[in-house]
C-alpha cells in the first residue's frame, strides 16, 4: 500500500475512534455518575442540600473559625453502666455513650474552640426548647456517615471506640432498625447570623438530632442563661 495512503488510513481510523469515543462520553457520562458544578470555593455544593447529602461538609466549614458552646463535656465509657461487663454480656453496648459524647468530641476537634454551658438544654429538654422555632432551622440531612466516621476522635482504648463498632451502630444497626428513634439523626442549622457571629451554640436531643445556631439566635430563643457559661 502506498505509504501516504496507509498513513492517512491510520489517521482516519484513529480520528473516527477518538471522535466516537468523545461523543459517547459527552452524552452518556452524566447518566452513569452525578457530576457537580461549583459556584463557590467550598467543598459543600448547594446540590447536596437538595439531596440531603454530606451535611457535615457544611458543618465543618461553619464551625472552623468559630467558638462553639456545648451543653456538656464528654464522659468516658467507665461512667456508663455497661462498662466492665464484657465477660457477662458478651458485647455490651450503651447507645448513650455514643449519643451523648460523639458530638462533643466532634466540636472539640473541628471548631476553633469550645466552651461548656451546663444550663443549655440537653437530651429530652431540647425538643421542648426549640419547638416554637423549628422553622428557623434548615434540614441539611442525616448525620449517620458523619458520626460513623467520627471514630478517630474517640481515643479510649475500648472495643466501642473502634471503627467497626461505629460502623455497626450508625450503619448496620440503623438500617436494620429504621423505625427506632435515633436511627437516622438529622443535622439542622439556622443560617441567620451564622457568618457574623463569633460564637455558635450546638444542642442535640436524645435521638442525636443536632441543632446549630448563632449565639444571637440562641439568646432570642431564651436558651442562654444570663451570665453565660457555668
Amino acid at each position, binding site marked *: 500500500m502506498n*505509504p501516504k495512503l496507509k498513513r492517512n488510513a*491510520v*489517521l482516519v481510523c484513529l480520528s473516527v475512534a477518538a471522535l466516537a*469515543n468523545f461523543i459517547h462520553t*459527552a452524552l452518556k457520562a452524566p447518566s452513569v*455518575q452525578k457530576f457537580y458544578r461549583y459556584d463557590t470555593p*467550598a*467543598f459543600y455544593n448547594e446540590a447536596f442540600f437538595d439531596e440531603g447529602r454530606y451535611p457535615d*461538609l457544611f458543618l465543618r*466549614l461553619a464551625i472552623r473559625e468559630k467558638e462553639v458552646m456545648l451543653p456538656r463535656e464528654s464522659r468516658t465509657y467507665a461512667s456508663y453502666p455497661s462498662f466492665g461487663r464484657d465477660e457477662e454480656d458478651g458485647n455490651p453496648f450503651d447507645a448513650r455513650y455514643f449519643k451523648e459524647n460523639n458530638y462533643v468530641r466532634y466540636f472539640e476537634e473541628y471548631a476553633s474552640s469550645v466552651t461548656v454551658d451546663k444550663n443549655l438544654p440537653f437530651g429530652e429538654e431540647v425538643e421542648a426548647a426549640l419547638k416554637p422555632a423549628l422553622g428557623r432551622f434548615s434540614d441539611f440531612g442525616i448525620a449517620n456517615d458523619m458520626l460513623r466516621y467520627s471514630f478517630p476522635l474517640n481515643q479510649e482504648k475500648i472495643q466501642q471506640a473502634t471503627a467497626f463498632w461505629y460502623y455497626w451502630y450508625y450503619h448496620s444497626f440503623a438500617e436494620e432498625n429504621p423505625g427506632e428513634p435515633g436511627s437516622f439523626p438529622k443535622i439542622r442549622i439556622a443560617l441567620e447570623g451564622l457568618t457574623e457571629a463569633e460564637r455558635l451554640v450546638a444542642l442535640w436531643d436524645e435521638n442525636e438530632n443536632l441543632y446549630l445556631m448563632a449565639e444571637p439566635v440562641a439568646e432570642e430563643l431564651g436558651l442562654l442563661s444570663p451570665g453565660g457559661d457555668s
Partner: protein
Amino acid sequence: MNAPALTEVLRFLTALAPLREAAVMFLLYLSGGVFLFSLGLRRLPGFLLSLAFPAGLSLFTLTGFLCLVSGLPFTGLSVSLLIFLALCAALFFGPGKKETGAVRSLLLNKKYLLIFLALGAAAVCFSVCRLLPVTIDNDSVYYYSVYPETLVREGRFLASFDTFLTDVGPLSAVLNCLPFFFGFDNTIGVQTLMNLSFLGAFAAFMFRELSSSGTEKKEARLFSVLALFFLLGSMPFRFISSWIMSNAYFMELFFICVLLGYRSFGVEDRENTGLFAALLLFLAMCSLLRVEGSVMTVLAVASFSLVPENSGRKLMAETLAAALTPLLFYLMLYIRLGVDPLYSFLDLKKAVLTLGLFILLALWILTLRKRLSESERLFSFLPAALLLLLIAGNLGLALINKERYISNLKTFYTNIRLGNGWGIFGLFFVLCVLWSLFDLVRAGFRSPDFFDFFFPALLLTIAAACWARGGLLRVGVGDSGNRVLMQTVPFVVLILVRKAGRRSRAPGDI
C-alpha cells in the same frame, strides 16, 4: 433576622480561599520547577512545564509524611521550611551546578522563565475557577477531607485513626492536608492542576515515543494531539480525573513513572538527572498513594529491570525510593502504634509480604540479573518469564480462594460490558489487550516491545491485588477494582496510538 441564602453563606465562609489556594498551588508549581531545573532538567521545556506541579506536590507530600513518621512537627510552617531547605540544597549542590550554576541559568533564560511563570499562572487560575464539574462520593468526603483535617488538627498519626490508617493511602491523606494547612476548603483545584500537568506530560511522552521510534516530527505531533483527544474523550479518564479521590493522582503519577523509568532518555544527557530525580520522587509517592501502590511499583521496577540498557545502580535507587515510604509507614503502624483493626485492607501479613517483594526485587537486581545479562539470549526471554510468574501467581491465588478470584474476574468483565465508567472505551481496552498479546506471540516471546509485556503484566497484578484486598468486588462504576482497572486508560491510549503510528509507516521505515 432573615436567613441568608446558602450560597451567600458558603461564599462568605470561603471568601479568602481562592487567593490562598492559588498562592499555594503556584508556589508548589514553582518549587517543583526549581527542584527539577536544579537537578538538570533544562533543555526539555515540555517536561519541565508538565512535571513541575507534580514534583512540587510530591515534595510537599513526602516532606509532610516524613514529619509524621519521624515525630517532627507536622505544621504548614515546618513542612514549608523543609521544602525550602530541600530546594536550597538542590539549587546550590545539584548536578547542574558544575556547568552553569542553576541560579545563574534561571536568571539568564528570562524568556524561558517568563513562559514558565505565565503558563503556570494561567493553569493555576483555570484550576481555581472550578470550571470543570467533578464527582464526589463518601470516600471523597471522609477519606480525603475529614481524615486529612483530623490529621492536621492532631499533628500526628494516632492509633484511634484505626481503619483510616489501613484503608486510605497515607500519602493521599497527607496530600489532602494542603487545604487545612493553608486556609482553603478542598483539593478540587489541586486535582484539576494535576490533571492539566498530566495532559501536558502525556502529550510530551507520546511525542517522544513516536519520534524516537522513527516517526517524522510533524507526524508525531499530529498523532500526539490525536492521542490527547482520544484520552480526554474516554469515559474512564473522564471519571478518574474528575473523581475527588486518590485514583487520579495514582493513575497520572504511575504512568509518568513507567514512561520515565522504562528506558534511559539518553546516556550522556544531563536532562537524565532531572528526570531521574522526578522518577525517584514519583516512585516514592506511588508506593503509598494507594494501598495497592507498593505492589504496582514493584511491578514497575521489575519491568524496568528487564530492559537491558537500564543500569543496576539506577534500578537499585528506584527500588529503594519505592520501598522507603511503605517501610517507614509499616514500622510506624505496627511497631509504634500497634494498630491491627478488624476488617481492614492492609494487615501485618500483607505488609510483610510487600516488604518481602521489595527485598526479592533488590536481590534479583543485585545478583541474578547481573548474571543473566551476560547472555543476551536468556535475557531476551525474561519478559515472558515475568508474565509466566504472574500467571502462576494468579493461578495460586485462584487455588487458595477460587470463588473470590472468579467472581472478581466476572465483575471486571461485567463492569466493562455494561459500560460502568467505561463507555465504548471498553472495546479499545480489549483491543489493546489482544493486540499486545498478538505482538508478544509474534515476537516469539523474545525481546518483546516493553508495553507488550508490561500491559498484560499490569492487568495480572491488578487482578492479584484486588484478590488480596479481600472481599468481593461489586458491579458498579464506584467499585474500587473497577476504578483501579480504569486507571490503565493512559496506557491503553499510548499503546494503541503507538502501534497505529508504527503501522502507518511503510515496511523498511525505522
